[in-house]
């Protein structure tokens, strides 16, 4: 996504790639999916955390640190690398929660301990923000947090599409309070919390439905303050950025693979890359791919700087990448021919992930309407 990397960044990324390929090559993921094994290896995740996968957004005084001094951009580069390998794990959910906790740090109850535990890989966290059957509406939760009189709250309701829920130790839950939408940190093992698996298209990510049935939390479970939407917007931006960067990584891999296929595959005595009907589609795809990288890179730079237009630029990126990734991937399937729709081929692994990413955290159309809102139309 970025043309010029420091030697530290290059080392960070190549280490991440090797680490992923060693434990979770694409073939292993395909086999695991057939065995219906669920979840990723927690020991592997702790070692991933030691490599820095969960420290990039966390300031040094809270136990984190970036590679280049620009943690958000480092994270986007890492996501791109992991997207090229359909990584399992909790990169998006844990870093999204960390983004919120770090943004709210100093504005409400102290969560330094949990920040440290997430950064070290000891714990995994996730954002419980969707509700069954609902579209993207983070500021209109149906789940209620009722004050209990002792400063604490009682949570009632259900969340779904909660990534890594079957393995999460901590849930960041959006809830309606008398003072507006608030977020609460809830241990997955708290009384009244029950997690059931939810079917999802991606073979290397696991989702769950989480029910909150009279769950009591203390006053210090609140993140920031009720009605304060800044931390949530930051989480949203980080989630979108990781998502778009992952998709860019996968797209580049699939595009290169398809170009190579076009050179190697012959029909009627010539490589299919020599047919103008296909060359022109490759030209369109090459242009959209470059544009996907351009818009994701611009979003990363804006989120890094907390720029005023960061909200717009992540929506621009999602609106574009969410749509074009699927155009590109389906055309790559078409150019591969029948092999492209078989289980044995890698293409579907990328298409599965990109399809879910299209759906999550606002669809491209949701983001277009958000852009119209932000433009004051």
């Amino acid at each position, binding site marked *: 996504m970025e043309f010029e990397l420091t030697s530290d960044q290059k080392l960070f990324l190549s280490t991440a790639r090797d680490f992923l390929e060693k434990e979770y090559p694409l073939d292993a993921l395909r086999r695991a999916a057939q065995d219906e094994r669920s979840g990723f290896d927690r020991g592997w995740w702790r070692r991933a955390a030691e490599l820095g996968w969960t420290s990039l957004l966390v300031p040094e005084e809270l136990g984190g640190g970036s590679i280049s001094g620009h943690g958000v951009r480092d994270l986007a580069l890492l996501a791109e690398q992991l997207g090229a390998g359909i990584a399992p794990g909790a990169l998006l959910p844990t870093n999204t929660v960390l983004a919120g906790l770090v943004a709210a740090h100093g504005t409400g109850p102290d969560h330094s301990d949990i920040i440290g535990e997430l950064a070290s890989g000891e714990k995994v966290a996730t954002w419980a923000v969707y509700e069954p059957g609902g579209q993207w509406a983070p500021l209109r939760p149906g789940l209620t947090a009722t004050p209990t009189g002792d400063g604490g709250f009682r949570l009632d309701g259900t969340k779904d599409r909660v990534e890594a829920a079957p393995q999460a130790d901590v849930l960041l839950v959006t809830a309606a309070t008398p003072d507006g939408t608030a977020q609460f940190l809830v241990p997955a093992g708290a009384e009244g919390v029950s997690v059931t698996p939810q079917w999802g298209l991606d073979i290397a990510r696991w989702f769950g439905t989480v029910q909150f049935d009279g769950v009591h939390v203390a006053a210090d479970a609140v993140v920031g303050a009720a009605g304060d939407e800044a931390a949530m917007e930051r989480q949203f931006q980080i989630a979108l950025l990781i998502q778009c960067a992952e998709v860019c990584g996968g797209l580049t891999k699939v595009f290169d693979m398809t170009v190579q296929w076009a050179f190697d595959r012959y029909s009627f005595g010539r490589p299919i*890359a020599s047919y103008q009907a296909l060359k022109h589609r490759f030209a369109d795809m090459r*242009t959209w791919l470059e544009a996907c990288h351009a*818009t994701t890179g611009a979003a990363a730079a804006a989120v890094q700087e907390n720029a005023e237009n960061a909200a717009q630029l992540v929506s621009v990126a999602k609106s574009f990448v969410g749509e074009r990734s699927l155009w590109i991937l389906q055309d790559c399937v078409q150019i591969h021919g029948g092999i492209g729709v078989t289980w044995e081929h890698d293409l579907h692994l990328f298409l599965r992930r990109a399809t879910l990413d299209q759906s999550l955290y606002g669809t491209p159309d949701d983001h277009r309407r958000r852009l119209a809102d932000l433009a004051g139309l």
Partner: protein
Amino acid sequence: MTANAPETAESVEEFRARARSWLAANLPRLDPDAVPPLPGDDDHLWLRARELQQKLHAGGFAGICFPREYGGLGLPRAYQDAFTEESMGYEMPIILNIPTFSICCATLLDVGTEEQKRQHIGAAIRGEEILVQFLSEPSGGSDLAGLITRADRDGDGWVINGSKTWSTSAYAADYGLCLARTDSDKPKHEGLTMFLVPTNAPGLTINRIRMVDGSTEFCEEFFDNVRVDASAVVGEVDGGRAVASHQLFHERNAVGGGSPYVSGRGATPTRPKSDPFAVALATGRTADPEVRTMLGEMLTLSAVRSQLRARVSAGIAKGHLGPPAASMLRLFHAEHSMTEDDHALRIAGATGGFGTGPEPGYTGLAGVSFLGRQGAGLGGGSTEMSRNIISERMLGMPRELAPDRGVPFNQIKRGSR
């Protein structure tokens, strides 16, 4: 070329402040609410552009990045950028940017003779001369080098015969850079020469082409024994391909926003374009979720277009991408422009293509602009050519069959239309 140290010690910010007060005192403000008129005869716009350029020159704000010895100010790019920013909202001679300054003068600066540079660049900066390009021909669009207009030696000069087309605003011009075949025994790219031809030369007839949107800025020219002196040759005899490459480079650079010789920014008033946002406001449909989705998509494509521009320009400048990558900008620009036309028409809904009373208004304009929708995929080389360049030169895919490659031009097969 712009590296000449300014003789003035004035900083960019001082220059900007001086430009701001000069603009306020000397140039009229544009009316942001004015509905653009339908395209049509636009001679008055060219007369007006000359007047405005003469004002800029008298005020000391013309040819900011051109060298001082050719009539410019010899200032670095940052001064031009500051002036352009300050000039927003003022009536500027935008139509002189392309091709006069950013393509023709820039090319003369690269490859012209000392005399050509002194005479023509200076005159253009003073608002006394407009230059255009005579490149395309009726017999071939994208296959530029297959042109058949010829120039034959005549004593120490040349005689040109043939015809040209799609020359933008030639009727308003004083000179045209004309590419002609000077040796038919050589392969097609090698026997071409560039000439600087005065538009009032005896034997040269210029007709205006009326486009579907009613605009008449494109022209066709007929050369009937047009005689030019040897001093009209730009670059080398039979070296016209190299000169044309400079022009094409400067054209891409200017369209892509990279030229230091472009002053001021904004739509060229000769060909108004549909505006989905203005249509949504005019039809009172901004609250419709479907309309908001389309407007959000337009905001997306506009942002991505400039992000892609920035990324590809930087990538080419630093060697991460080869020069053919610029074709991706051309392709994306066409997609953006066509989507703009499509969305404006869809948002106009039942009023698309109708005016309000006798005036076309934004909804009528959406229809007019839609008629010329494909222009964005044709002008400056078709999108099909861009797709060939990207697939062949960026991705290394096999080239299309070209039976004319390496063959003497007079042995190449030609069609009948």
